[in-house]
């Protein structure tokens, strides 16, 4: 008998998420974001959240939905353009913002999930990002010490998943999801297709089920495109 991580629905998946918690949310822009869980967080009306996510959504989609309801106290991100409400809350001081270089953000999540408390990186040395951080020379080049990140809940979105919690992502919707899945005390995976055990090829698993505590099949994915660029035939 294999361990099963299946929960009935998004409500069961998000059970236990409370005010003041730190959440990680996968996605790059609107690509690969956990749409179902974000809607549920709005419904739950949890407040004072610290959200670790590469971006903050747009005004009316993604994390922008939580911003609208003022549920987020602090954002930890690398890029927060394309969101007017975000900018307003940040400039007025309602929202605390910690901007982190994208590669450092990814590695800090990975480190958090991998049991590495901190690491040195050249990114941000000599800039605001490096202020107050330990500097050490390696190969005659200055590096700054960056700390690992973990979260009370990591919420990720995958293409396919199985009852064991194994996940496969599609295209560039993978992005931050695998590292965040590793770094949650509880990791929730919402998937487009929940398939029976044994269906996924073990050679093709991106996130092994050990990192996932709860999995469910989401529905009504909008998968909004932020910048629709095409060429003519």
């Amino acid at each position, binding site marked *: 008998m294999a361990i099963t991580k299946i929960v009935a629905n998004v409500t069961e998946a998000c059970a236990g998420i409370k005010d003041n918690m730190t959440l990680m949310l996968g996605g790059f*822009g609107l*690509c690969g974001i956990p749409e179902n869980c974000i809607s549920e967080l709005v419904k739950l009306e949890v407040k004072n959240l610290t959200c670790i996510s590469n971006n903050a959504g747009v005004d009316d989609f993604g994390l922008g939905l939580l911003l609208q309801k003022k549920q987020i106290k602090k954002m930890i991100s690398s890029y*927060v*353009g394309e969101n007017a409400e975000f900018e307003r809350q940040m400039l007025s001081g309602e929202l605390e913002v910690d901007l982190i*270089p994208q590669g450092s953000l990814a590695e800090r999540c990975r480190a958090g999930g991998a049991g590495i408390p901190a690491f040195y990186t050249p990114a941000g*040395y000599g800039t*605001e990002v490096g202020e107050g951080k330990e500097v050490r020379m390696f190969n005659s080049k200055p590096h700054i010490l960056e700390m690992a990140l973990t979260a009370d809940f990591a919420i990720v979105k995958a293409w396919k998943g199985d009852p064991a919690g194994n996940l496969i992502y599609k295209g*560039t919707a993978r992005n931050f999801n695998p590292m965040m899945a590793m770094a949650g005390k509880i990791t929730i995976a919402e998937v487009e297709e929940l398939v029976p055990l044994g269906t996924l090829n073990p050679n093709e698993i991106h996130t092994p089920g050990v990192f996932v505590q709860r999995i469910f099949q989401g529905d009504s994915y909008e998968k909004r495109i932020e910048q629709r660029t095409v*060429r003519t035939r």
Partner: protein
Amino acid sequence: MALDKNGIAKRIAQELQDGYYVNLGIGIPTLVANYIPEGIEVEFQSENGVLGMGPFPFEGDEDADLINAGKQTITTLPGAAFFDSATSFAMIRGKHVQLTVLGAMEVSQHGDIANWKIPGKMVKGMGGAMDLVASAENIIVAMMHTNRAGDSKILESCTLPLTGVGCVKKVVTDLATLEIRDGAFYLLERAPGVSVDEIVSKTDGRLIVPHLVPEMNLD
């Protein structure tokens, strides 16, 4: 005549070498992909997790799960690969990507670059720019020589919050190609029809002008 954005991209494309893995930033750098010299094979990396990026999709073929770092819908070419963000920046920090082209608001004669924040006005975040400039060996900045107010963006030292220090080697603007060496900008080329005097007058940083400054060859 000063170059337009496509002209800048065309000039930078001449820096591509066969077998290069290249990361193109948002804006003018993206246009470089349109001018790959004939007989040269390069592969484009986008830091959100794709190598082997192709052109924009045909209308109707857009896929929400397939975008570049500018969040634009893209396609992939045969041989493409997807990966997570940590792997993506391992490629960048680990120097597996040979050329980075990015835009800037300011560049200093020491190779410092500022492109992520205007205090009190614009704070969008650095995205992947700080990781890119801190690690890439070969960084070319693509930008206009002056800002909209007509002030030089080629400075003695940057006034805006820095993205990276001492990292930029080359700058291609609408007016000139500049190399940064030993705390100065070396004027390598001027845009077709642009005079050395105009470049000198629009450059605030220390500029070394050789006796002969050839025009860019964009044919």
